[in-house]
């Protein structure tokens, strides 16, 4: 047995592991030799966030300080990340509120009063008034909503402006108010390394045609991780768009990093390793499980959303986008990156109730797919955590359940298109544009709270690299066999049955790894071949061989 704060190998005396399966909890005894990977402990939050924000604005990266860029009467737009970040929504005051309040104070001091605030949601669903108020705070909301504080609308053709095309032919467009401002200030919160940088403006304030440049099967099937901006084509494309945009629009980027304190107070035991939990915390865990088991779906979801995350600010930088983002990535990796030696033959993970696209709604099967084969698959640097052709086991009820308001186009995508084809290129060529231009879906996006008609396609493409890499996906606890069939998954009654099924195609002594989330983490994976290269033939890295038998 080996153990560190982030990688722990189970032995015959090990406690059961707990897994989140949607909004329920499972206790599972896993095979001896299973390697459990945990997130790092939360970085210590900054003691005085407001002072740190002011310091960043006055000491920017590769840029004049904010106050030096201001003139009375100028036109300023403040754009900010939408509800997809952070997860779940954080306790008040949200860090964006802190930043925006300070920025507005500085603008006011310099006689700037032509100010609009825009939720940069791209083709995500519109935020409700209450959600926006939660993010920006009562004071800002009451002063600016709804005329000068509103959601970006990618389908409001009169209020979108074409910037042009990059040298690779990628369309670049932008929200007109933002593009025509004397200064665009972007307030970003970084939850994963994929976010922020040029993605903030070039994606957050763009329309469908700009998204098509990189949200497509070709770019998204890249073998690199899209959580590693340095290597993935998605970011290369967005960077080109962003650089072109910044030739036309003056951008002052403010990016923040947070720690991973997803649960605190009464639920803080959910972030602990099983070995570190006290008897009282185990009792609380069992009590929570018993409660959740007896509650209806909606009540379980409501219970979790009633406990906002206790994220704390760990860093803030401002100024020129690329210089700022470089600092942010370093801090982000410091929190999330866990060094791991060797890939797994069988990877097991519970899928919790939340992802960037289902805040206040259900994690439907297409989103389960994007979490399993998209985000979780891509949460690595170096090599994927699972070997090519390996088996992924996810714990989730995987019901045929969709939010009819938020995910209306998803329903048609899953029920009408997936029975016909799972091929991302066919879906892209044959159906994507029709969905994107469907009058009903556009109307639901613009005036309701639905994701854009193109969004289910993007979700499918985001799982494409994982789909090509992973050999089998087994859904432990799946309640709908037809859904599994549509997605190409195998249903299993529970985790133990899923493991038995996985052994059928695994090597003789499979390396089994459990990715223990939430909170999220990234793995800096050293593949077996690299380990052999560095340590010489015959030696094996820590945790690369498992016991190979069920406990």
């Amino acid at each position, binding site marked *: 047995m080996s153990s560190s704060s982030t990688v722990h190998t189970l032995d015959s005396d090990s406690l059961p592991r707990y897994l989140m399966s949607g909004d329920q909890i499972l206790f599972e005894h896993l095979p001896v030799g299973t390697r459990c990977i945990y997130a790092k402990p939360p970085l210590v939050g900054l003691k005085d966030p407001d002072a740190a924000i002011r310091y960043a604005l006055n000491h920017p990266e590769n840029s004049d300080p904010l106050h030096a860029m201001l003139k009375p009467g100028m036109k300023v737009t403040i754009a900010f990340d939408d509800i997809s970040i952070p997860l779940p929504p954080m306790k008040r005051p949200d860090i964006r509120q802190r930043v925006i309040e300070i920025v507005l104070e500085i603008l006011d001091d310099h006689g700037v009063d032509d100010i609009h605030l825009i939720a940069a949601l791209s083709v995500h669903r519109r935020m409700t008034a209450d959600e926006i108020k939660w993010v920006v705070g009562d004071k800002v909301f009451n002063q600016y909503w709804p005329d000068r504080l509103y959601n970006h609308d990618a389908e409001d053709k009169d209020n979108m402006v074409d910037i042009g095309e990059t040298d690779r032919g990628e369309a670049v467009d932008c929200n007109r108010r933002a593009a025509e401002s004397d200064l665009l200030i972007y307030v970003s919160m970084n939850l994963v390394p994929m976010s922020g940088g040029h993605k903030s403006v070039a994606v957050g304030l763009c329309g469908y045609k700009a998204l098509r440049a990189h949200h497509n099967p070709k770019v998204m099937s890249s073998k690199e991780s899209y959580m590693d901006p340095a290597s993935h084509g998605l970011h290369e494309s967005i960077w080109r768009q962003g650089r072109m945009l910044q030739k036309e629009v003056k951008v002052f980027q403010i990016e923040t990093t947070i720690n991973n304190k997803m649960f605190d107070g009464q639920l803080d035991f959910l972030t602990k390793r099983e070995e570190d939990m006290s008897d009282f915390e185990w009792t609380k865990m069992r009590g929570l499980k018993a409660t959740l088991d007896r509650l209806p779906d909606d009540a379980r979801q409501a219970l979790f959303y009633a406990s906002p995350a206790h994220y704390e600010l760990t860093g803030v930088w401002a100024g020129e986008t690329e210089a700022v983002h470089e600092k942010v990535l370093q801090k982000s990796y410091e929190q999330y990156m866990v060094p791991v030696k060797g890939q797994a033959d069988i990877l097991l993970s519970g899928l919790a109730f939340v992802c960037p696209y289902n805040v206040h709604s259900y994690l439907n099967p297409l989103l389960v797919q994007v979490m399993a084969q998209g985000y979780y698959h891509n949460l690595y640097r170096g090599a994927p955590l699972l070997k090519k052709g390996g088996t992924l086991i996810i714990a989730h009820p995987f019901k045929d359940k*969709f939010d*009819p*308001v938020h995910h*209306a186009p998803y*329903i048609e995508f899953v*029920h009408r298109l997936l029975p016909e084809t799972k091929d991302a290129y066919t879906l892209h060529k044959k159906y994507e544009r029709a969905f994107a*231009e*469907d*009058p*009903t*879906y*556009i*109307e*639901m996006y*613009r*005036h*309701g709270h*639905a994701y854009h008609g193109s969004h289910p396609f993007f979700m499918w493409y985001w799982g494409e690299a994982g789909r090509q890499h992973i050999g089998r996906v087994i859904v432990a606890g799946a309640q709908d066999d037809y859904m599994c069939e549509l997605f190409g998954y195998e249903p299993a009654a529970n985790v133990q049955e899923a493991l038995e099924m996985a052994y059928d195609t695994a090597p003789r002594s499979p390396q089994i790894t459990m990715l223990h989330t939430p909170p999220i983490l990234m793995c800096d994976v050293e593949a077996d071949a690299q380990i052999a290269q560095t340590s010489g033939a015959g030696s094996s890295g820590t945790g690369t061989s498992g016991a190979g038998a069920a406990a």
Partner: protein
Amino acid sequence: MPASYFDVDGTLTRTNLVHPLLFYAMNQQNPLRSVGHLFKTAARAPRLLLAEQLDRGSFNELLFEGYAGMTEDRLLELADEAFSTVIRPGLYKEGLSLVARAKAAGHRVVLISGSPDFLLQRLQKLCEADDVIGNRLEFKDGKATGRIKRPLVAGPEKARLIKAHAKQHGFDLEECAAYSDSLSDVPMLTVVGRPCAVNPDVRLKAMATTHRWPVLDWRKGKAA
């Protein structure tokens, strides 16, 4: 190229079939005739309420009896005013935007409604719809008889008319869309591949939820 079929009353506009009838009843040649028409309409109200619960076609037939005795000249002469006074202010701006989107997407836009055709034609002009399928009043000696010419545009007949229209233009119904607010239009919604409940009442909302049809609700918004 597919078609988009739009119900009108309650879907694109807040008004219903009764509102134009009341306008005409109140705008007869003299006050005495207006009082007479209003009285008859009021007297018909309990039967109308019952008919609406039972069968949309019967409701339309009963309601159109209210036009009996009105001259064709007067109905057409006042049509612009009836449209601008009664229907136009009640139009949902989101509805007009949706129609424009459908046009922009290359759909043939068809208004299909139990409303009198001469009023629908005004709406057709406003929103640049391609076709109108509405109820046609029967006239005899220049006066409305109170009867509706066949086909009666309501309920299942709307579905048949949509099928006929699609066939005539070579549309694949699976690619066509239909929009309505009423449970009585479920046949029309089920005949196309892309149905959508708009401003649905409780019963249609339940039906839409069961069938997982998209739902649009503009009732909190302002008129166009």
